[in-house]
């Protein structure tokens, strides 16, 4: 099946290495897509929605219209985009008045929103049996000895009534993908905690949440080799704040954080040099050593 690839803006503009890893593994998995030219920011579910729900819905509906014109469903590579686009579709299905109001604005720029394209996050696809089997076949470098901490992040699984990706309190989609790579996923109490990135106006919240989660991971009996996420905000939050916290508190907080497609790319045999793994605060040096790369 072919998809309209919605890149969002943070990943393609600030983290092109994430996009590269995604495109590489998608290619290995035989996933085909068309580029969504002229797409804007999803827009972001924090500032835009806070200022005006209507602006948020209309800008999102404009992006959905682009996919409708292509006659394709949307595939997203970031949880923030996924939440915005999927919530817009669901809300406009439920609220006929909003549907009409938003279309009356879109008409002024020559668009009409119909609600015919569905929205998927790549986690939904890759955790299906068909893809898990493909992943196991492609595996060039099984991650047998790795202990991986999975961070689901909020905007992939909640609210489950709208997003419908996974169980909101006992999710397993991401674990399935990581286990298909041969790695072991660790159990820990803070697994479903928020990264705090969206509490933008009080940065201390983000620092506290990152410190709590990473401290717990450092205290586990088994050594955690890497933490993984599927949202550009979560991944950069844990990566950058760990380093700042180490400096501030003197604690050793140094768990490398990768975007799931990056870990998949490593397992698929793609050379780490190509993946731009140096573009982060905590370099996964020890991780690569453990994999004998």
């Amino acid at each position: 099946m072919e998809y309209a690839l919605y890149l969002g803006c943070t990943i393609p503009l600030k983290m092109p290495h994430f996009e590269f890893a995604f495109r590489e593994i998608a290619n290995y998995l035989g996933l085909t897509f068309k580029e969504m030219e002229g797409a804007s920011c999803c827009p972001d579910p924090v500032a835009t929605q806070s200022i005006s729900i209507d602006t948020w819905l209309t800008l999102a509906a404009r992006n959905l219209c682009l996919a409708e014109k292509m006659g394709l469903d949307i595939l997203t590579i970031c949880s923030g985009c996924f939440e915005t686009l999927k919530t817009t579709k669901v809300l406009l299905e439920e609220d006929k008045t909003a549907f009409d109001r938003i279309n009356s604005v879109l008409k002024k720029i020559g668009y009409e929103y119909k609600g015919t394209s569905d929205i998927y996050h790549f986690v939904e696809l890759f955790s299906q049996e068909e893809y898990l089997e493909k992943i196991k076949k492609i595996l060039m470098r099984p991650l047998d000895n790795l202990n991986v901490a999975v961070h689901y992040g909020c905007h992939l699984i909640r609210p489950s009534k709208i997003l419908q990706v996974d169980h909101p309190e006992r999710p397993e989609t991401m674990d399935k993908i990581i286990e298909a790579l041969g790695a072991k996923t660790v159990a820990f109490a803070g697994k479903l905690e928020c990264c705090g990135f969206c509490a933008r106006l009080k940065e201390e919240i983000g620092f506290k949440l990152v410190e709590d989660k990473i401290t717990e991971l450092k205290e586990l009996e088994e050594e955690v080799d890497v933490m993984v996420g599927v949202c550009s905000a979560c991944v950069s939050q844990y990566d950058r704040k760990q380093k700042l916290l180490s400096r501030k508190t003197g604690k050793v907080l140094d768990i490398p954080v990768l975007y799931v497609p990056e870990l998949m790319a490593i397992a698929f045999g793609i050379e780490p040099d190509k993946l731009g793994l140096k573009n982060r605060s905590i370099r996964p040096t020890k991780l690569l050593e453990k994999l004998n790369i």
Partner: protein
Amino acid sequence: MTEEEVINAEDLDYNFRYEISEKVGAKSLLKCIQCGICSSGCTVTEYVDLQPHRVVASCLLGLKDIVLSSNAIWTCSLCHRCTERCPKGVDYSFILALLRNLAVKAGNCPEEYRGTIQTIHDNGYVVPYTGGLATNIDRRRDRFGLPKFVPPDLKEIDIIMQETGIGNLLDKALEDKEGDK
């Protein structure tokens, strides 16, 4: 609010609850039974002046000014656990977004958020993508062999923002910029 503070009944805005619940996504406000599950699972519960269940109670009581000037509506981390766990289906995260919209309309818009809207307006993205910045970004993308990035028509973004009623936030910003020159 201190314990001793007294609010007169005539200062309550009894219509406030309906101002919120008339929006389809926020209709659930009226179903709250004050069980407090939202507050017990709230990521930011220790940082707010009003916990989620108290925000809802205050909306129902008509304490509009207290709600709209609280830090609670801006401190949320959008984890959606409140909405997820509510046994009555109250969509607190959506209600909170609506309350922030009302606060903005009343003239209280945090500069950080306004700045983001301005960036989206001027670039189509939350990341500045013009001039030298765009050249640098394109060069980085080239190094990874990524396809050329085709930005949106900014006129369309502008029309959407104007038509959905946030043009005033943007105009102000443009004037400020001109003033700086």
